[in-house]
């Protein structure tokens, strides 16, 4: 049988369906939908607009940071400092505005802080060869401590002349009654997805995660890109911090405490591989959604809150287990 060149070029490895079924993200989406359906029938309080509003809003903060984390994880790195960076950015915003500056200056200062932290992490990792785990573990401690220094470990809940603007930014619902944080999450998710799929930068991130040595040899600017991904991760934490400050209307120094683990869990559940080279924006959001639905449902079903960790941890292991089973089958 003669095969023309065009046929060879068009030849895909899998059909649409087989690709879908072998996709971890797809199964997590199914799990989220099934859980939501089950809960709507099993409880009266799940499918109420108030509860759904709560869930979607709770998902967003983890999801936004998970989007940034996705970049880092695709390169094969990790960023443990995101929870603390979120807190530091919030605190810089809060303290700046509390001192009487406008919301624009507050946000600028906050974003600049996040980017500076990310650049510090990135330079140490890319140019000085530090292991990402160690650098960002150190930063986890440093950033939170700096947040305490900045606020003298007090709660800030008065944001100066632009107090109302900040609350509207985070707590409003400007379009179709969708909570603003959800809108931000969708916009950032689209930007992340586009960047990963359609830009040279995104392609190079995958290349670094797949084979860093090969990327270097073929002339990919590996070091610059690594700095950039840690800056993106810190930036996403900073943005989530700003939005969360507006939502909560107060900042304490334990904001975002332990969040890094939830964020990493969300990306891994969504299909990202901690060894690098695999990950999607949609997966990060879906992973965050699954964690939140599990948490929410345990509360509604009246299960003791102490069980939360067990269920979320179980979800992480289960998600990766499916991936392993597929790999075993492939290698047979």
């Amino acid at each position, binding site marked *: 049988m003669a095969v023309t*060149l065009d046929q060879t*070029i068009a030849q895909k*490895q899998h059909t649409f369906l087989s690709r879908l079924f072998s996709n971890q993200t797809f199964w997590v989406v199914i799990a989220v939908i099934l859980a939501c359906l089950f809960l709507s029938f099993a409880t009266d309080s799940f499918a109420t607009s108030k509860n759904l509003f709560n869930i979607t809003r709770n998902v967003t903060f983890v999801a936004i940071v998970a989007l940034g984390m996705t970049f880092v994880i695709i390169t094969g790195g990790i960023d443990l400092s995101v929870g603390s960076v979120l807190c530091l950015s919030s605190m810089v915003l809060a303290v700046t505005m509390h001192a009487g500056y406008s919301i624009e200056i507050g946000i600028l200062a906050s974003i600049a802080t996040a980017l500076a932290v990310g650049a510090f992490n990135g330079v140490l990792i890319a140019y000085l060869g530090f292991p990402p785990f160690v650098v960002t573990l150190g930063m986890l401690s440093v950033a939170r401590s700096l947040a305490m220094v900045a606020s003298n470990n007090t709660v800030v809940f008065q944001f100066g002349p632009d107090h109302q603007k900040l609350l509207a930014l985070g707590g409003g619902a400007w379009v179709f009654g969708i909570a603003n944080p959800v809108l931000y999450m969708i916009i950032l998710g689209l930007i992340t997805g586009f960047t990963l799929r359609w830009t040279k930068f995104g392609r190079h991130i995958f*290349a670094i995660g*797949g*084979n860093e040595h*090969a990327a270097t*040899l073929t002339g990919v600017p590996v070091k610059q890109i690594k700095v950039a991904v840690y800056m993106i991760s810190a930036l996403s934490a900073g943005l989530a911090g700003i939005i969360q400050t507006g939502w909560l209307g107060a900042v304490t120094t334990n904001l975002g405490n332990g969040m890094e683990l939830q964020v990493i869990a969300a990306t891994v559940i969504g299909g990202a591989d901690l060894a690098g080279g695999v990950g999607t924006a949609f997966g990060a959001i879906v992973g965050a959604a699954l964690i939140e639905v599990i948490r929410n449902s345990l509360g509604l079903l009246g299960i003791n809150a102490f069980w939360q960790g067990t269920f979320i941890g179980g979800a992480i292991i289960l998600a990766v287990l499916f991936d392993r089973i597929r790999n075993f089958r492939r290698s047979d």
Partner: protein
Amino acid sequence: MPVLELANISKHFGAIQAVNDVSFSLEAGEVVGLMGDNGAGKSTLVKMIAGNFHPSHGTMRLDGKDLVLHKPADARQHGIEIVHQDLALCNNLTAAANVYLGRELRRGIGPFRILDYGAMYKRAGQLFAELKSETRPRDLVKQMSGGQRQAVAIARTMLSQAKIVLMDEPTAAISVRQVAEVLNLIRHLRDQGIAVVLISHRMPDVFDVADRVIVMRRGRKVADKKIASSSPEEVTGLITGAIEQVA
């Protein structure tokens, strides 16, 4: 005029002298076998020509002009392509993505440019056809055979008008049938007027395809002669040091 000339090139890493005062020239359409034992300095020498390392001493001239390379992209711009020993492939990407790694095609206007998947699949497919390889552009490299992976790495060198192709152990890890394919490919490159440097441990390959053989030992060039006037026995002697040096 030689296409590439190396004059008194040396490279040291701290106290280790990897390449010591090596000079040679390369003509267009010539296949040169570069041989030597492990640690003889072959790879270091080739990495300097490819822009991965900067020579500690000495000069390189391309088409009679001084050549200074700061990064691999510089070498490519001058028409120097390399097939790395480990092939430098990313398993998580498609064949086409690997072929275009580091020089992806994009379309769009000004700063708003997106990856041109269609054009990359098309051109990669044509290159694989030209190489008579069964590799398909959309396949992930993860699931490919040794020969297919080799084709992906070699297709990279054909993207632009290369003057020199450096091949680091291209036949080390592939089947016998595929070795013949790779050697044919080297002839194919030579017939287009490309100068090929073939680093190899495999004596039959070098004597089959090369016009000239250069032997290195402990960082120094110990022989540089026509294949016709040499023999595998002599080259083996030169590699091991049983023969000290030939003119």
